[in-house]
């Protein structure tokens, strides 16, 4: 039995589990997801014009993190495998994109499409790494899997120092990226262009993941999470399913890391340490484990919360001595307390809370109508 088998609240499992009766909407799942993605894309486009460059960059960062958190929530929430090493997979994608872009630029190749090639390479390489880790992971459960993935999270940044000839040690590599195409105008803000790139890649990822979750594979993921023995009896190859889930989430993590590298125009091991892996996990659990909408909340929190709590400390007027001590530490303390309180008050995460709220409102509305 998997250690994270009870990861989602029962009502979710009941609706999301295998063996759904014939659903009138089933045939249109892809279309529905496409429609949602199109609307989200347009919203994002509008947003990119409505807000200032810094917010554009922040939203782009949310999008990059979202790639990783969405994959992680599928792995941990739907398939029941705990990974503390997704930061390392992001690093794999980030370094691949950096090496590819540098190779292109060294050979004098330029052009917007090269970035697509690099991003694809990042996904491919991370898939390969993810497959290796996934094969090992499929044998392990609960804290043992956590232990191995934790070691992976520590090893990958360390390797960049060991092979500093390729990865340039702790200083890392720069990632040359083309400026926005001139067709968009000479004064087109770079941050808006970054948001477009990250947003497009992330929406595509979410679209694919949403379809995967709704597909036969999604059901086998959940079946393996809920009861391995039953899944095996039902003819599901448990290990293969687990490796597949790991590979899928590795691909998205690789893409997320690659996007982060493109946004930052640089990559260095310090940005992909153990802390990142732990924060990704916190993000998906606080957002609401096993739900893509929860992954969105998680990614937003990752970017917004440090910023928000920093603004809070800015409001306080402090003496020089007190300010020195509180600066930096107070935001962390607020972040820590938020984590603890959210988990105590709403163990289903933000999305769980919202669905509960939504259901309550709906029930009241229906009661009033009847």
């Amino acid at each position: 039995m998997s250690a994270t088998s009870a990861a989602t609240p029962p009502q979710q499992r009941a609706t999301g589990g295998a063996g759904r009766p014939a659903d009138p909407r089933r045939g249109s799942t892809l279309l529905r997801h496409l429609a949602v993605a199109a609307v989200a894309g347009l919203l994002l486009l509008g947003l990119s014009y409505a807000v200032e460059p810094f917010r554009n960059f922040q939203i782009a960062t949310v999008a990059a993190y979202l790639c990783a958190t969405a994959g992680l929530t599928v792995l941990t929430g739907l398939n029941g495998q705990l990974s503390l090493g997704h930061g390392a997979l992001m690093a794999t994608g980030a370094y691949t994109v950096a090496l590819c872009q540098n190779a292109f630029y060294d050979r004098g190749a330029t052009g917007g499409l090269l970035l697509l090639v690099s991003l694809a390479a990042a996904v491919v390489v991370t898939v390969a790494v993810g497959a290796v880790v996934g094969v090992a992971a499929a044998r392990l459960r609960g804290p043992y899997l956590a232990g191995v993935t934790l070691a992976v999270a520590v090893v990958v940044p360390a390797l960049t120092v060991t092979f500093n000839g390729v990865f340039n040690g702790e200083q890392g590599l720069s990632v040359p990226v083309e400026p926005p195409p001139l067709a968009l105008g000479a004064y087109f803000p770079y941050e808006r262009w970054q948001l477009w790139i990250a947003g497009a890649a992330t929406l595509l990822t979410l679209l694919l993941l949403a379809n995967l979750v709704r597909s036969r594979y999604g059901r086998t993921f959940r079946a393996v999470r809920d009861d391995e023995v039953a899944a095996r009896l039902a003819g599901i190859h448990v290990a293969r399913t687990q490796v597949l889930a790991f590979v899928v989430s590795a691909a998205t993590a690789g893409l997320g890391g690659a996007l982060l590298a493109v946004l930052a125009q640089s990559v260095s091991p310090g940005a992909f340490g153990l802390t990142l892996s732990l924060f990704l996990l916190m993000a998906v659990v606080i957002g609401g484990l096993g739900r893509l909408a929860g992954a969105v909340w998680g990614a937003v929190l990752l970017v917004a919360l440090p910023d928000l709590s920093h603004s809070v400390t800015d409001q306080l007027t402090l003496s020089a001595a007190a300010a020195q001590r509180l600066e930096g530490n107070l935001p962390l303390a607020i972040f820590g307390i938020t984590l603890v309180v959210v988990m105590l008050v709403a163990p289903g995460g933000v999305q769980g809370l919202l669905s509960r709220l939504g259901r309550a409102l709906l029930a009241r509305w229906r009661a009033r109508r009847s």
Partner: protein
Amino acid sequence: MFPMHRTARRGLVIASTIALLIATAACGDDGGSGPSRGNVPGVTDTEILVGTHMPLTGPAAAGYSKIAPATKAYFDYVNANGGVHGRKINYRIMDDGYNPANTQQVVRQLVLQDKVFAILNGLGTPTHTGVLDFLKTNRVPDLFVASGSRSWDQPDKYPGTFGFNPDYTVEGKILAQHVKTTMPGRKVCFLGQDDDFGRDSLAGVEKILGAAGVAVKQTYVTSNTNVAPQIGAFKAAGCQVVVLATVPGFTALSIGTAARLGFKPQWVVSNVGADHPTLAKQLGEAAPLLEGMIGGNYLPMQNDAANPWIQLFTRINKEHNGNAEFDGNTVYGMSVGYLFVQALLAAGKDLTREGVLEAVGKGGFQGPGLVPLRFSADDHSGYGGERLTRVSGGVQSYFGPAYETDEADGAVNEYTATPVQPPANGVPTGS
């Protein structure tokens, strides 16, 4: 199929609304986005907004977290004395925890949202390397980076970036020169951090002693706090002089570990990891082990109460920094502040980003430093030399002359100019 139709129809309505909105937004945006004249980001008639990124939390914060508050205290002092050309300096300190990903966020926040005039003294090689391109594209002056990497000295590639610390190769050459002249024939070994810091420093040492002149070379990574294997190798090889390119924590750890193994070489330590108060505090009762340690530095010694700069900085520390513990980091932070005020004054009353870069590029700043700042149109590196220090009787003090050299194959020369005195009121006057 009904729900799908509804979704699609609703989507269509939303989509067309958004399309309209974008069209209007795009027009409005393009119309008003031209840079208006005389409107310099972060500068008003009464204020100059400047930002920095520093590790205030996390394992790297030790020591470094005191630098930015010291700089701020110096600015507060200047502000209390009328500011620079009537403008008060507002210094925004952002914590990046020494994590390059955070640096990306906070520097963008400073530049894009807070609209700072310049980034001053951003700390760390891996952290600051990541924002060089961003600062360049946004034409933000990137002054006096707090690290000895040679990356800051690339005037062609990064015209707006200037360093502050002597680079690690310059320092390695000066330390090695001392070893070569005063300890000839001794077996020299080297322990360095496994990054630019360690590598550049070793390059400098080898420029003077030759590659064969360093008998055993070892590295450490900050994520492994056991240096006994490296120190054990030095002992086994019979090293007599050990050059350390280490951060303070690992200087203390190396010296402590060596004592534990009964190994007592002559320590020669980079300025990064040679601040005596920091080391003594960390070693606690074992502080006497630091006796005889040779280090490098380029700013007045914090314990030199007779030095007028130290008198000035101590006073400012008392009045504007909550009388925080006074050490090398405090002196460093205030020296950065002093240099920045000099640069602002040199840039004149009509402050622009181009103006301040031009002023810094002209160079010629005289301040607390014991060696010259090398700023010129084609040199953006910071201090160009160091003077040696020795711990004797529990007190770290300078000895011998100051030296200057370059990061290439130039000779190590004595620098003989007498240090300047601080202005009477502690605020630089316009040049």
